[in-house]
């Protein structure tokens, strides 16, 4: 990739971002730049604050200190929900747990945000949704419900749902961690195609081979700080920092993966407080 850093402003830039949960510091001075059209990966051990960075970028979390800029928007300075909503129209987010709306069909999942948030008409929204489903090769499941799909299928729908907003930027939060090994590939294929089309992407991932393959820039975080960053080749082939080398030795050997988490909404209400009265 040609270096365009000198010509173009970064689309996302974080400067000295600090965030603590109930006094527990999670981010301790993060600096990060994402240029338009770049694919940026954030790697690092579990609990190093990778997902927190993504949530700060889209305003789901508010840092205590530091600057976050997305295009012309100062995210850290947003005070009203309406302003954050404007931001989120431009930033897509894909979750580890897919988080599709279980009460809506696949097509409805893709149409609800354009219709309700962007106020687009049904016909356009549906046309768009079907096109995006075709793009992620899920057009045959348009009328299925999320609960009927495999993890990989749900995740592809979730990516399509993020795309319905026509975002400038998509954030991927460990999108393959909850998937069965055999369905990881189909999701990665979709992401790879997106980066090839020039979509600006930030990925938090444990798939080191994949990160190496598609990333323009890789950030290695540990304990809430950026330990090292550089091109994929630089980080994976010639890591400068001992911590990075140590991490990659383990991570490349055995890809870290969490088991799929069952989410049955009825499980919570089992044996709930007995609702009898006399």
């Amino acid at each position, binding site marked *: 990739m040609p270096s365009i850093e000198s010509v173009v402003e970064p689309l996302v830039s974080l400067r000295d971002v600090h965030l603590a949960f109930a006094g527990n510091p999670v981010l301790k001075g993060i600096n990060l730049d994402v240029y338009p059209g770049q694919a940026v990966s954030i790697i690092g051990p579990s609990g190093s604050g990778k997902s927190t960075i993504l949530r700060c970028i889209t305003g789901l979390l508010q840092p205590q200190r530091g600057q976050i800029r997305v295009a012309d928007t100062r995210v850290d300075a947003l005070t009203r929900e309406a302003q954050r909503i404007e931001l989120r129209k431009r930033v897509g987010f894909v979750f580890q747990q897919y988080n599709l709306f279980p009460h809506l069909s696949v097509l409805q999942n893709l149409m609800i945000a354009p219709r309700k948030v962007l106020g687009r008409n049904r016909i356009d929204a549906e046309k768009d949704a079907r096109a995006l489903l075709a793009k992620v090769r899920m057009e045959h499941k348009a009328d299925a419900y999320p609960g009927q799909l495999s993890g990989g299928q749900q995740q592809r729908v979730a990516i399509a749902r993020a795309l319905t907003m026509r975002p400038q930027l998509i954030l991927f939060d460990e999108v393959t961690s909850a998937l069965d090994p055999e369905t990881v590939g189909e999701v990665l294929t979709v992401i790879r195609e997106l980066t090839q089309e020039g979509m600006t992407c930030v990925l938090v991932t444990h798939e080191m081979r994949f990160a190496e393959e598609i990333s323009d820039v890789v950030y290695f975080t540990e304990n809430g700080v950026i330990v090292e960053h550089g091109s994929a080749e630089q980080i994976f082939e010639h890591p400068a920092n001992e911590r990075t080398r140590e991490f990659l030795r383990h991570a490349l050997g055995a890809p870290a993966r969490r088991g799929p988490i069952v989410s049955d909404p*009825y499980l919570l*209400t*089992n044996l*709930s407080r007995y609702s009898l009265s006399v």
Partner: protein
Amino acid sequence: MFERSPVTRLLPVMLGALISLAGTTAAHADATLDKIEQRHVLVVGVLLSGGPFGGIDPATQKPRGLNVDLAQELGRQLGAQVQLVPVLPANRVQFLQQGKVDLLIANMEWTPERGEILGSVPTPFYRVGGSAAVLKDSPIARWEDLKDQPVCTSQGSSYVKPLTEFGAQIKAFKSSSESLLALRGNNCVAAVHDATLINPLLADSAEWQGYRALTPELNPAPSVIWTRRGETDTQARLDPIVQELHRSGWLIEAQTRNHITPASPALVELQQKFQASGA
């Protein structure tokens, strides 16, 4: 969450099982006197709704009132231990019929209808009629005015029938307590109960100043001790005892002791009658 499945199509079967469990209630013929003499136990149903006829002593939680005194006196004279069973107007007839109680001293006046299904001691121990508490400014002046009006009373009261004949809309509660409160909540135009309950209430209680009693008394009738039907031996055994209680003035004394006001002229009348006949 528990599964709810279709219900009750087979309800009767289930109930059948229960019924066989319930068994049959054996009604003894004139076993009462035998029972009293063999077991030395007298089971009396008394009405304890609060008030001078039957209530409980807050300190000892023992039943008290004229009904209770009379039951104890009968037991003493028969040499039997008295077991008191509190009854409700709604269930007292059933209790007697089932044999759960041997006698009823429960503010239950003699009426021809009851006379057909139950037996009673011929000599009454009291005489009382119904009275209605109504608001002072109420347009109700005669019993006939209750036609199509909501009237509170208690379930199984002897006044239900005459009131129905007047065309009143009966609202029957478990006991007089609820009925009187319902009257004060304006859910009915009148509460109809024994005059012995209504009259002292209106006369003594400051809270009832806004109310007056409807006269004359509705269906004044003798209060009797009830037995099961056909138990003539028991009735014959009890009748002289009741007569003696009149003659000796025991009943008048019990009336005074229990603060029943106004005193019943019937008691004096009966005392004179038995004193004359006995002398």
